[in-house]
């Protein structure tokens, strides 16, 4: 009996300890999410806002969104943006991680400096690249001119619908590469040097070392980098908002900017909510997938 009481007390103490975190989550995350969820099933717009006359319309917002060509384009572009960014970021980040893992002079300080790109506020990076990508007088076109790489008229990086997506992908990669590199280097430094040593004695080539030792032992790191990268990239907003506002001609519109435009420019609050929920569901799926993978890994 005494023991049971003690256990109850322990549980209570535990509850008190997690209470602040639970409250924080409830107020700042669960409440807005639930509110947004309910909103997405109503028809709240500027016209019925004041009298709170919006009614429940079931899945109509969602159906309309999926029928909306702009949204279809935004969804495809979000996927394309994410895949392109992750591929480039991950491969270059991996190469740099291997490079900086070699023990040479200044490896650590230089690696640290590369992180500046990742630590800068995204709005600042966005603005800087917006000016660098200007058609007339932008640094990038000037450099192309100097090195004789300009064929024909100067490329309109941010005003040509065919190029704009590439311009934002390049910018996002510039931010993402150091992040990928950092996580992978940390993983690499956890692999014991003994393994490489014994492999060398057994006559392993460099390539064998890389593909048979480094990659398999980095599996957990690689998985986290890819998943986190996916989540960060998929919900991109500030970068695109600063650089193109989704333009030219929706060429860089992604789900988050679509949602923002619906809610805050066009005052279609419910449509904005519904598209935000779609974004949430996509990220949630990836998140759950990631958590399960990690659990499996840790169980091993």
């Amino acid at each position, binding site marked *: 009996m005494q023991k049971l009481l003690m256990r109850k007390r322990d549980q209570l103490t535990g509850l008190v300890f997690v209470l602040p975190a639970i409250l924080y989550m409830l107020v700042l995350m669960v409440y807005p999410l639930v509110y947004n969820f309910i909103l997405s099933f109503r028809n709240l717009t500027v016209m019925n*806002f004041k009298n709170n006359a919006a009614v429940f319309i079931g899945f109509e917002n969602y159906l309309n969104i999926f029928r909306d060509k702009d949204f279809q384009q935004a969804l495809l572009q979000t996927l394309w943006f994410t895949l392109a960014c992750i591929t480039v970021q991950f491969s270059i980040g991996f190469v740099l991680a291997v490079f900086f893992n070699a023990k040479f002079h200044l490896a650590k300080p230089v690696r640290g400096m590369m992180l500046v790109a990742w630590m800068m506020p995204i709005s600042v990076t966005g603005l800087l690249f917006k000016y660098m990508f200007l058609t007339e007088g932008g640094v990038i076109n000037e450099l192309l001119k100097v090195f004789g790489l300009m064929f024909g008229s100067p490329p*309109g990086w941010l*005003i040509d619908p065919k190029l704009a997506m590439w311009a934002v992908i390049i910018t996002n990669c510039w931010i993402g590469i150091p992040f990928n590199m950092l996580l992978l280097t940390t993983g690499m430094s956890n692999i014991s040097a003994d393994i490489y040593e014994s492999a060398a004695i057994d006559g392993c080539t460099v390539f064998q070392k890389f593909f048979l030792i480094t990659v398999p032992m980095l599996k957990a790191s690689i998985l986290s980098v890819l998943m986190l990268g996916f989540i960060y990239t998929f919900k991109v907003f500030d970068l695109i908002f600063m650089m193109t506002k989704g333009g030219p001609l929706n060429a860089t519109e992604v789900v988050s900017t679509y949602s923002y435009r619906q809610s*805050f*420019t066009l*005052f279609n609050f419910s449509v904005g909510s519904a598209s935000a929920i779609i974004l949430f569901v996509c990220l949630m799926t990836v998140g759950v997938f990631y958590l399960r993978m990690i659990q499996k890994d840790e169980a091993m």
Partner: protein
Amino acid sequence: MKKLVVLFLALSLLLSMTAFGVAAEGKVELSLWHYFGTDYEYSDGSIFQKDIDNFNAMQDKVHITYEFVAREDLLRQYQMGAMSGELPDIGMVDNPDMASYIQMGVFADITDQLNAWGQLDQFFPGPLSSCTQDGRIYGLPHNSNCLCLFYDVDMLEAAGQKVPETWSELREVAKALTDPSVGRYGLAISAVKNEEGTFQFMPWFISAGGKLEELNGQGCVEALTFLNDLILDGSMPKDIVNFSQGDCNNQFISGNVAMQVNGPWNVASVKELAPDKNWAVALVPRADNGVHASVLGGENFGITTACKDVDAAFEFLKYLMSKEVSADFCEVAGKFSPRADSTASKDIWVVDPIFSVFADNMQYAMPRGPHPRWPEISTAISVAEHEVFLGAKDAQTALNDAAATVKSILGK
């Protein structure tokens, strides 16, 4: 634990005491949000804040605390505030957006107070209409502006051209002033994909006889085709699809464009940053068989529905929009007063070579909307503009699509 409780008690006591403190002094504390820039001493925001300081000093009933909030943030705050009730007591709005916020219940109906004030008949109907919905008034226009053509006199003379008055003249002059060897374009307007882009499209659209109800009519198509021709001629940079009005002004100051369309709020910065430039303004050229036209811009102030003391806030509005304060503010800030008697009281709008042209142009300035769903109408227009300038659609097709959108909004 006990200590914590005591601490909380002490804190809440302290807080309530500060509240009592204000009450004891007998002043009503009101907050105000604005997005006027305060970069320079002569910036509209700096002058505006001085007006408020004066008001706070001259009476001891009301104290106004002002806060600068960036335009985009301010608009978002109103929306969220409308849901949560967290609004300032007095707020500033760009006039085409006012109708949406009235519709959302952000601003309080002050028709009765305004009627009792008895000075409403001094306000020009155009700016005042943006504060009105269903015959009730929800605020007061604070300042007005319109668009003119800025041109570099020396460049024009060097090219042997005279100031363009019609579109065909403009096309010729813009071509003559364009010089790719020095990277100079003849003309720049702002065509950025937001309200600024729509604002800048209006003078051309109205001059050609375009109507909102019939966006795909002949006038509107002609206007859009004409502007696109300027880009095709190479007289206007394609980059204008990303140019804000501030960007246009910077290009004009640095001499990268010989002419720009812009408003009076930029006059001070051209004078300050390019003191040696020989420049002047003219009416925006009219369609060859049309009339001169311009567009009405400006900001309104309203008392929000969350205001603690509407009467106290109204005292401030009366001061802010009195004949003298309005005239002084507009004179220094380079704007136009929405009051007829203020405008008549100063001679800057008659004698100044730049402002007299703007003043003349004000008679042609048409308001946008007012309509609660103006942002959607405006988006339809700026999207059509982009589609044409970027070569995705021809003017007629782009405007057919825009017209369908706008018709569905106006029809409701």
